């Protein structure tokens, strides 16, 4: 394969960083996942884990790297070789979101900034099939790409000290859901009653990189009904392949 010209850099003496061209791009993201899966399928014993992002993967090694250049050459050979990966089945997750102003502290201000009605914001935000690019920042925080151009909004200059669990928010050209209470600088336009990180589940985060997300607007009554069902452990998000 070897579709891109990759940069390989030692990252300290326990990791190697592999970088694609400096942009957020669907083709690059596909190739990031391809290479990550390829490395994982080859079960290289010295590797502990891989952190993938938009245009990079960081490979963590179990112990100090004796010779970074020999590890890098193993990776290069793998990428440049005639390899194929068994693709994981990507899922499409339907995520209920309540866009009521009681649960969306920044919806009114965003409507003023973007000169859009609240209805237009909801329509634009629920239209796309977002891609889960990777999970980072907080346990279970999905970085989603695919936000409509009209909703792109600079982050707040001063981050909020408290953003509630479930907050659905916009920051620059990304949108995401806060899986737990946290400080944060994105504009909160709704709230999802689902649990995005639960250590009691075998897989603590139901979605994984490569999956698709579609937001479904719900009213306040449905929001609280789903929220209590989630707390009782008898609500699972809908998904299709």
């Amino acid at each position: 394969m070897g579709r891109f010209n990759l940069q390989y850099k030692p990252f300290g003496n326990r990791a190697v960083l592999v970088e694609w061209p400096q942009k957020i791009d669907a083709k690059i993201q596909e190739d990031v996942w391809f290479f990550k899966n390829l490395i994982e399928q080859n079960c290289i014993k010295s590797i502990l884990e891989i952190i993938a992002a938009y245009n990079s993967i960081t490979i963590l090694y179990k112990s100090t790297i004796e010779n970074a250049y020999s590890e890098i050459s193993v990776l290069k050979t793998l990428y440049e070789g005639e390899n194929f990966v068994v693709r994981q089945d990507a899922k499409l997750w339907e995520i209920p979101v309540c866009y009521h102003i009681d649960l969306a502290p920044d919806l009114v201000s965003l409507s003023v900034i973007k000169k859009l009605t609240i209805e237009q914001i909801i329509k634009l935000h629920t239209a796309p099939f977002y891609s889960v690019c990777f999970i980072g920042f907080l346990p279970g925080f999905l970085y989603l790409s695919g936000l409509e151009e009209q909703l792109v909004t600079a982050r707040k200059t001063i981050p909020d000290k408290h953003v509630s669990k479930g907050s659905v928010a916009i920051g620059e050209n990304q949108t995401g859901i806060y899986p737990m209470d946290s400080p944060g600088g994105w504009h909160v336009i709704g709230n999802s009653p689902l649990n995005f990180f639960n250590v009691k589940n075998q897989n603590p985060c139901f979605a994984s990189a490569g999956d698709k997300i579609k937001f479904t607007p719900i009213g306040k009554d449905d929001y609280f009904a789903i929220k209590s069902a989630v707390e009782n452990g008898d609500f699972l998000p809908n998904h299709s392949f």
Partner: protein
Amino acid sequence: MIEIIKSGLYSTVQDLGRSGFAHLGVPVSGVMDQFSAKLANEIIGNHINAAVIEMTLIGGVFKFNCDTCIAITGADMVPKLNGLAVSTYKPIKIDKGDVVSFSASKHGCRTYIAVSGGIKTAKVLNSRSLFKSVTTEGSLKNDDMLSIDEQNLELKEAYSKIKNQRFDQSILEVFTGPEFDSLSPEQQKSMLSSEFTISNLNNRMGYQLIEHIDNNLNPIITSAVLPGTVQLTPGGKLIILMRDAQTTGGYPRVLQLSDQAINLLAQKKTGDKVTFSLITMNQF
């Protein structure tokens, strides 16, 4: 059981952390000063990954409800056993009902208590390390009870001769970070030749330094960060990420601390001075 009579300023249970979950955004966590914590475990014959108590700046008071053996390493918090001074870096025999107490640190920042067999709190995602949002609590509270195994061991005469003088060192060994080469030679020189002061923004997630570096770098496309990654913020502040750091970030990663440097920094506190010393790659 260990009864937490006083938790101290900020005390947690930590092992060597939870690796393998970074792809879900879960920090590694684990003891801040791995050198001291591993040593505490080794002194009493534990596995190095056994869970220990990590105390920060001001220690706590602990009552043991069974016989066991402990070792204390790291910062000097003037440990006492039933009110009498007790040695650090040695196995200490504990009888049921004994009380071990600590004061404010005289030297260093973090103290470790290893208990024979390790602390047996519940594992979450393969680790006993406390981290709020993965575990229910992030730190120990007064009246908490920690499970341990009752052990009636013959005390071994093994003890470590290593004392905590090494905390006086102020040189942090670093590698260049992924964005180091984007800095101008002047910026690189200023970062590698200046002395930096640790600000009061220092905790298990990261240490912010007071002095500025001129910064004209653009943010990077969000990418992985590691414990020990030194980020340069748009305002020109350096932040050294520590064990509870997030898994990804958007600030340029200008330096990367060695494991030993992370351990040393974990013993530094507000106002302490540090400098960076570059390790070249062929010195691996």
